[in-house]
């Protein structure tokens, strides 16, 4: 019996996902105590729907962080692809929601390819390259839209209905939430059981060893940045569907939320560490915090500061646990 609890404790300490899940449950209960309307199906459903964009975008960021890079241009490519796809829908180039999503994903993919090209062929540090592209894509969004909105009445009604209905699962869950879950399921399989996924981890944990073992690093890097761009495009379409309007400044600052979700989920910023489950829990934590702060009466002006503090706390806790783990590993080897 004693051994069993000891094992459980050990498992808890070593498994980041499990401890994060406990923190999340604890957080939910705490909020529930302060405001009893939190743990109701409606609130939870609204929360998942409203944060489906952030949760989905976290996947793209995760894959970039896993190879030891970073992409702070995702929010801008989200706005650019969402805006372009919306403008084309407004001008009756197409009317189908599916085509709109595909176009948005395509444009996002091209944005990501551009970033990937500069990072791999130009050998530019990812942070510098994406800092530049953040402004280029944002500026391009303002230019294509002429600083005007695409408002709800300019969209097809089927598109406006899409984010509020449950057609994809025949009335089971919201469409956007369904898309998010599908993305996570696919990514879970890719990261865990495909050659591509394992190569991403290999490059992140030791690029030199990966190169020696015959992995084409720059090709994988290029693909990963393109995928991150495609996720930004998908999220751009989801964002416009959710709010039934496209604005030039949409998603501003979202890259921070997404990075925070990854960091809380245990993705290491030096690459090679992190799991899809962890990122899901991290993104969920961010969503709970974002939804709950107004519910328990915290002013909206405090949210940015709290977010920043959470990011800092999460990365510092990551380092501390890592140090403890290394120390433990050394201790065990001693014996």
């Amino acid at each position, binding site marked *: 019996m004693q051994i069993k609890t000891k094992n459980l404790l050990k498992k808890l300490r070593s498994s980041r996902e499990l401890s994060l899940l406990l923190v999340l449950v604890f957080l939910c209960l705490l909020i529930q105590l302060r405001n009893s309307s939190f743990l109701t199906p409606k609130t939870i459903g609204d929360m998942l729907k409203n944060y489906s964009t952030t949760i989905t975008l976290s996947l793209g960021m995760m894959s970039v962080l896993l190879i030891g890079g970073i992409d702070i241009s995702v929010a801008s490519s989200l706005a650019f692809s969402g805006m372009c796809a919306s403008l084309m829908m407004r001008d009756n180039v197409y009317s189908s929601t599916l085509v709109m999503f595909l176009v948005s994903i395509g444009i996002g993919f091209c944005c990501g390819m551009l970033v990937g090209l500069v990072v791999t062929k130009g050998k530019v540090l990812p942070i510098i390259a994406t800092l530049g592209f953040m402004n280029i894509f*944002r*500026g391009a969004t303002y230019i294509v839209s002429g*600083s005007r909105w695409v408002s709800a009445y300019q969209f097809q009604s089927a598109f406006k209905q899409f984010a509020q209905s449950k057609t994809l699962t025949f009335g089971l869950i919201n469409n956007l939430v369904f898309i998010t879950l599908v993305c996570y399921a696919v990514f879970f399989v890719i990261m865990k059981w495909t050659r591509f996924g394992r190569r991403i981890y290999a490059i992140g944990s030791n690029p030199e060893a990966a190169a020696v073992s015959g992995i084409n690093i720059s090709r994988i890097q290029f693909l990963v940045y393109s995928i991150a761009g495609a996720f930004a495009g998908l999220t751009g379409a989801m964002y416009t569907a959710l709010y039934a309007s496209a604005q030039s400044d949409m998603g501003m600052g979202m890259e921070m939320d997404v990075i925070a979700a990854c960091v809380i989920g245990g993705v290491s910023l*030096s690459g090679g560490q992190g799991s899809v489950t962890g990122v899901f829990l991290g993104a969920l934590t961010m969503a709970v915090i974002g939804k709950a702060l107004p519910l328990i009466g915290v002013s909206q*002006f405090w949210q940015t500061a709290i977010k920043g503090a959470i990011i800092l706390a999460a990365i510092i806790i990551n380092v501390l646990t890592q140090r403890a783990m290394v120390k433990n590993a050394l201790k065990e080897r001693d014996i």
Partner: protein
Amino acid sequence: MPTKSGRTIAATKEKSLKSVFLRWEFLLILLFLIVNIMNASISKNYLNATNLFTAISTFLVKGFIAFPMAYILVLGDIDLSVGSTVALSATLLGVSYNAGLPMGAAVGIALLCGTLCGFLNGIILTKFTELAAMIVTLGTMTLYRGIAEMILGSQSTGGLQNVTWFYDLYYARLGTVPYIFIVFCVLAVAFGFILHKTTFGRYIYAIGNNRLAARYAGVPVQRVRLICFTLVGLICGISSIYYASWMGTVRYDIATGYELEAISMVVLGGISTAGGKGNFPGTVISIFTIGLLKYGLGLINVNSQTILMIIGAILIIVVTIPNLRFRKHTEKHALASSGTAQ
């Protein structure tokens, strides 16, 4: 045998590096002249000294930040929190003045706040050396901006120009030369001198070239980094004072995008983002090049979003070009030396 081959490689590398930088500086001055000729041909009044100094003063406010940012990039680090630090310092300055404190004390608080923000960045980075500067300053960028938002909300704090000497900080001139320009020149000389002529400056280059080797050579790596990050904070404090004097009112969302401009100025000046390379005069030239380019684009009514886009494009092009050129050299070296290097 190995020492000999090592020496020859080092010698050729230094030579090629030198010629690249000579060309880079030449290119920069050429660019600077092109921008000026372009501006002068757009507007007849451009070369009037009073107008020119008015234009220059506006970008000197953020130009200051490029000085310590150059140190940070030579170190091989990065600081993305500068814009937020300026916003927080300026917010505290405005709030404390409007709370009834004398202006002198408010200015002191702004300087202190900036320094503390930089110090916090530095202390986190030196206590947790595993962390990259990028992610820590990305976090503090959100945190500092958030605190400013917490203090001010959607409001602004104004009336700062009612104090004459504070108004004069930005607007007063010695003849036609504004005082801010003189301060800028003095700081430029001081920062350049420290980087190129003192032990501290050599430490910065040593750390940027190879942090581990520098540590083994007895360079106090973490202390130098801490000082540099604190210096960034202090200069952000100074910049925030000039911003407040210039605008007279402060909101929490001021100075967004300063990090992009400061980094662009430094990188265009020829300082490598990978650390250890580049020199200071290039940075000073590129502060004026970018500043005057923006002014010229404003003259022909290009909107601010497009200008930001152009700056972003310049940043990427400038960083990409030398890498494409350098790669040929390194590939040649790799072929010349043994196969394990690759």
